[in-house]
């Protein structure tokens, strides 16, 4: 646990106060929700049955979900909310620096009070009796735990794979001493959750299920079970632009897959206004970088040294346990293999240089410091790195944007940096299954052989690689603007705290907020969740 930072005392005080108020159900957003609910005129539901899954006390998401639930009720939907109820051995409410034990009591209190504040009844999945033991799990070897299925045939091992790695803050579960222990904990929790979820879905028989992300612990189980039952599953995530949301039907929103939208707009040139809008946003990204964490607050300009080197290749890593990466490593089995392959290739080209930029999130995401640092991995795996390879550590203040500009070629797995480099008209070799792969402005490789050949080609002549800055800009506009819907009704002034900005329930009614209409239409009527076309 990093020691408290003097610069953040204000934030700590605010969070402490908020934690106290949550205990008595009087957090500002909860009081605001009650005021809002008192003004709402109830109407009998006549529309589809919509079930929200709101299991954790992630304040921003709880408030987003409850506001959406309220908006859907105003449009005639019959809305119910399933919460966790607590009592699981482990879940992804916390990570392995923080838990177990899980903060079930405070988590449950906040979620239930918040749901009640919106005039809804939380229906807990669990918590009535302790989950049953599962002693047979002790007999399963660590390498086989991902194949575990429960009595009803649900592939729990597969479903807890990403949440377990996310919890561990490490993708190398099989070589992590905590891996087997944590995976068994997740499997026991998943078994109890799946059993309760089956019963809830069969009892409530919703038409729609709305949930966060789609890959997290509760959500991956619910998505699977609901899909098996023919229920329409809608997932959402934060968009890349501040105060936007991304929605997907059936798929995990966290993959940010926008191919259908791209097909629609890939040939349509951007207008002058759209170009300006995109440029303004890209400038914002350069200054801040992440919707929640300010990676570039104290960034310094990169000094890339003299010109004795030939080509400069910049490799930008991902955080290994990010759900956007796991299972999407593409040409390689892991990020580490991809890194090794890149260094191996560059070893044979001493006249050129490779700069490895370790993702700043490894060190800068408060409370989520990685347990699998790629910088440390490189130190161990490469006792002496080739002299033409430079590693920029996660906590280094060098701005990645300067590196992008200085690079002749970029190497990425799934990082959005690849898209940003393409926007700078730089050739990019994409090895992972990222959303912008195969869109015509990057060089996408399917196997280590292709990867090596792409690097060779890039070193010989970077211009030989695929590039299309205009297509990249059209894609970026579709991705950042069309596919993400503005949702300014809830904000997160400090990570972990939420503010409700709606003062009047009329703001939630049909026909008032076009963005909210798009979302509600998408959930209720199968609309396409477009953030621009209708407005």
């Amino acid at each position: 646990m990093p020691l408290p930072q003097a610069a953040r005392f204000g934030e700590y005080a605010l969070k402490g106060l908020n934690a106290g108020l949550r205990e008595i159900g009087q957090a500002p957003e909860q009081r605001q929700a009650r005021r809002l609910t008192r003004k709402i005129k109830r109407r009998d539901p006549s529309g589809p049955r919509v079930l929200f899954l709101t299991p954790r006390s992630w304040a921003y998401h709880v408030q987003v979900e409850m506001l959406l639930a309220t908006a859907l009720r105003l449009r005639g939907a019959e809305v119910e909310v399933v919460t966790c109820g607590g009592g699981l051995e482990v879940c992804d409410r916390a990570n392995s620096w923080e838990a177990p034990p899980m903060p079930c009591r405070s988590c449950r209190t906040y979620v239930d009070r918040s749901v009640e504040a919106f005039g809804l009844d939380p229906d807990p999945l669990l918590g009535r009796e302790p989950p049953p033991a599962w002693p047979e799990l002790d007999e399963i070897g660590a390498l086989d735990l991902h194949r575990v299925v429960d009595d009803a045939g649900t592939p729990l091992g597969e479903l807890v794979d990403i949440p377990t790695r996310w919890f561990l803050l490490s993708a190398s579960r099989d070589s992590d001493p905590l891996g087997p222990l944590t995976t068994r904990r997740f499997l026991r929790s998943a078994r109890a959750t799946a059993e309760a979820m089956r019963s809830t879905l069969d009892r409530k028989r919703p038409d729609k299920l709305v949930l966060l992300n789609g890959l997290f612990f509760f959500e991956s189980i619910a998505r699977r079970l609901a899909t098996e039952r023919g229920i329409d599953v809608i997932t959402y995530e934060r968009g890349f632009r501040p105060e936007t949301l991304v929605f997907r039907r059936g798929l995990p929103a966290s993959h940010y897959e926008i191919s259908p939208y791209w097909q629609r707009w890939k040939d349509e040139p951007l207008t002058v206004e759209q170009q300006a809008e995109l440029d303004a946003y890209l400038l914002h990204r350069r200054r801040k970088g992440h919707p929640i964490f300010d990676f570039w607050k104290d960034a310094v300009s990169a000094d890339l040294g003299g010109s004795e080197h030939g080509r400069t290749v910049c490799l930008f890593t991902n955080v290994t346990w990010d759900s956007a990466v796991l299972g999407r490593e593409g040409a390689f089995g892991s990020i580490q293999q991809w890194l090794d392959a890149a260094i191996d290739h560059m070893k044979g080209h001493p006249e050129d240089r490779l700069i490895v930029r370790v993702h700043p999130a490894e060190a800068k995401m408060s409370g989520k410091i990685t347990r699998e640092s790629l910088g440390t991995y490189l130190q161990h795996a490469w006792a002496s790195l080739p002299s033409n390879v430079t590693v920029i550590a996660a906590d280094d203040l060098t701005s990645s944007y300067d590196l992008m500009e200085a690079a002749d070629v970029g190497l990425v797995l799934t990082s959005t940096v690849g898209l940003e480099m393409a926007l700078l008209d730089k050739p990019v070799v994409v090895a992972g299954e990222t959303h912008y792969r195969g869109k015509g402005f990057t060089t996408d490789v399917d196997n280590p052989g292709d990867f090596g050949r792409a690097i060779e080609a890039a070193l010989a002549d970077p211009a030989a690689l695929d590039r299309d800055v205009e297509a990249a800009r059209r894609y970026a506009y579709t991705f950042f603007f069309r596919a993400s819907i503005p949702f300014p009704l809830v904000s997160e002034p400090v990570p972990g705290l939420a503010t409700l900005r709606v003062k009047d329930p009329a703001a939630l009614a049909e026909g008032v907020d076009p963005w909210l209409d798009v979302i509600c239409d998408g959930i209720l009527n199968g609309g396409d969740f477009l953030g621009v076309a209708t407005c």
Partner: protein
Amino acid sequence: MPGLVRSEFPVPMGEAVPDRSDPAPEVSVVLPTLDERSTIRDCLDSLLAQDYPYIREILVVDGGSTDGTRQIVASAAPRVRLVDNPRVTAAAAMNVGLSEATCDLIVRADAHTLYAEDYISRSVDALAASGADWVGGRMRPVGGTAFGRAVAAATSSPFGVGPGRFHYSDTARDTDTVYLGTFDRSIVEEVGGYDEGRIQWAAEDQELNFRLRRSGRRIRLDPEVRSWYFPRQTPRALWSQYFNYGVCKASTLAKHRTLPYWRPLAPASMVAATGVWVFCSIRRRNLLVAMVPGIAYVAGAGAVALRLGRNPGVAPHRAVGALAICHWAYGLGFWYGVGRAAAGLPFDTAPRRGR
């Protein structure tokens, strides 16, 4: 097991065809167990996944587990052999294992531990390269809960456990005792084997190492020999463990009329001095003065805990708790053991309720 996958044990250890022109020696692994169901599978998996091709056998010497440990071990046959230990204790298990082992080179293992893939190969290499008689690695504790992480940090710090180098040293060196170990069984037989009768249970390794050093043998710590140990995860369990460790040292003192090293005297002296101070202060009716040792301890432990709190996931207040339990339980256990010895009472050679 409806719904569960069939899970084979990994790695074809027995199927490897050793190149016998290679001078590397064969080894027997001896693993004492007693009710280890929750950890034995992972422990065996990590032993079976070793990159050292000359592991002739893994002997699990079980003291009568009733929780299913024996069934899990039996399912790993024939590469793992289950051997009964009617005398229950770990010391007895090691003696049974040594008599059953078919190799001269022995790897002493523990069921609460996971082993790096190269654990045995590095042990064998270090044994040959250093010329030492016993080689072991660092004890690398891994906390699986918030309190467990605090325990791991406290027991990896010189302030938590004193200068026991096997807890934290990063350099290879000769030392007084190590965690587990690899050795030729003849050296153990020369000094009479593990003591099953005169010392407190759990004292067997350090007491044996003490006898070995007295007979001129070298104990070597090599931090490259990597394994991960799961320490106690609750205050109560930690208290019991460290109280017993204190008794262990007292039993070694009673047996040898000396201590293998001075470390136990630090917590024991602290407990004794505090007791005397508090007693005298209360007799003089000066309660404020009586509180001084407590305040001083909290201040000192607090400063250490703040330092330990720099480790991710370690809350300073839990680290203070872990440090306090380690120190006070150990010190009290030591004096309890001294009292037992002074009264002529025997030590507990087996745990009363499992280990």
